[in-house]
């Protein structure tokens, strides 16, 4: 669906907070039809979506999943386990979450995940095609970093997944949202995109980011 003509570009977003509404805005600007949800009924986020991401439709999480084949997961990291295991069956699920102890509290499983927290997320949603991405920049940096393709100094964002087809779809999405897309390889390599990872929180160019990820892999 996402690779079709402009008329049927669809993106789903679960989580209508800072990150969810920021990604929604970028996707609307890129020509996507966007459906977004919070933890409750659609009415509860209607005004937020209307003001912060006009053009996106505020719906329930079940409706988001029915609506789109690519879904961004942008709920607080300490809450993703509230969602049912099979919710995203067959969907490309972009894990935009970061684990920060000062925000999410103690979470042994996430704190000690040697291959990154997206592996834990994949474990929770075994039938989803998890791609790690869109987590790497703060929401302000994301908002202000968007540039059309080919513009000098465009910022790069990487994505990682064990599912190559899913990964390619997400790389294309990243490019449309306004960033150079960098293939970070397998899901476990996504650990470099997390807080404390070498690629976190810095606006790199695509060559810088590729080099960095390559070095990281070699030293792993």
């Amino acid at each position: 669906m996402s690779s079709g003509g402009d008329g049927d570009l669809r993106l789903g977003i679960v989580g209508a907070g800072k990150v969810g509404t920021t990604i929604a805005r970028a996707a609307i600007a890129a020509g996507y039809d966007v459906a977004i949800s919070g933890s409750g009924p659609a009415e509860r986020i209607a005004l937020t979506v209307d003001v912060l991401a006009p053009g996106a439709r505020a719906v329930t999480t079940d409706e988001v999943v029915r609506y789109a084949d690519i879904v961004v997961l942008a709920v607080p990291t300490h809450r993703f386990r509230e969602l049912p295991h099979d919710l995203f069956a067959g969907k490309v699920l972009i894990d935009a979450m970061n684990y920060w102890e000062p925000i999410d509290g103690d979470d042994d499983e996430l704190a000690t995940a040697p291959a990154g927290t997206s592996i834990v997320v994949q474990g929770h949603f075994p039938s989803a095609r998890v791609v790690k991405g869109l987590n790497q920049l703060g929401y302000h940096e994301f908002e202000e970093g968007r540039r059309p393709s080919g513009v000098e100094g465009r910022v790069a964002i990487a994505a990682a997944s064990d599912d190559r087809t899913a990964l390619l779809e997400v790389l294309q999405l990243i490019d449309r949202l306004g960033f150079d897309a960098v293939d970070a390889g397998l899901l476990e390599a996504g650990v470099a995109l997390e807080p404390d990872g070498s690629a976190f929180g810095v606006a790199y160019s695509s060559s810088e980011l590729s080099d960095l990820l390559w070095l990281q892999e070699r030293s792993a």
Partner: protein
Amino acid sequence: MTTRDIEFGLNSFGEVSRDPSGRLLSEAETVRLMIEEAVLAESVGIDLFSIGEHYRHQHVDSAGHVILATIAGRTERIRLGTSVTVLSTQDPVRLYAEFATLDAASNGRAQLIVGRASSTESFPLFGFDLADYETLFEEKLDLFTRLLRDQPVTWSGTVRSPLTDQFVRPAIAPGSIPTWVGVGGSPQSVIRAARYGLPLMLAIIGGPPSRFAPYVDLYKRALDQFEHPRLPIGMHSIGLVARTDEEARAAHWPYWEAVMKLASKERGFSVPSPDQYAAEIADGALFVGSPETVATKIAATVRTLDLSRFDLKYDLVGLPQVSRATTIELFGREVIPRVRELLEDEPGLSDDRLAAANTPGSHV
């Protein structure tokens, strides 16, 4: 048309200072310094002195209300607030009792900002789970606003024992202790402030303040939707005022850099470069410079965000006493009058918009 009425505050996180010889003050000395600084703040015409709530190394603001009570006894006019009270890990009944008492002792000068704060040490310290943050804040805000507005209170929830027809003393005139909600950018917090009909305090500590304009819009529209009147919007930022821009930067940068180094380690982002620092002063959230520079920037931000309150956080771990005193003096004597002058005869934006909001059909 009316001139915009703005409240100017000074805010401390209880950060340890150093004396003229360069010696770091003890924590007790820093507590006493804050009291002297609040007295100074009143004498130079600052409207409000507020204290944060932290439980960390080199911050002595763990019991700010006790410091505020001492200041109350030394001053007559300056309002006494918090910035911010970590409501989620406090008992609302105890908090009410303390602030109603402070209000009585200070003859009606107590106020608060409640919020999450960016540091979360109080959760493990008092035995709360950060993962329960939302529930704790929501329920406690509900109980706290009821205690402030409508006693006796009958309340039940999951975060503390229920209350039945409970009065808590001393009594206050309903709603007379201003209570703001501090937010850092999450839309659900903005909507919550509007839902409770509480004024909004934006913590703007990085990047251009204009980023917050959509949240201001969201807040106003949410107030309309909940059928509350227009309420004040304020902001809090970090700053330092000196005679010249150069002096201000030279005095500020080493301490700001040190704080950012620490924060970047905790949060996993990179340390800002001197260039980024300069950009933060030029277009971002740092109010560092001469009185004219800082006043011009405040006035512009007041217009952009339709503000009725501006709080300057003046302390930074290790920052010498003399820089703090200079900031307070220049902020009170020069910056505040200059901002008022710059905004003089400016149409009260809020009034215009209020009129627009009352026009039938202008809001759906």
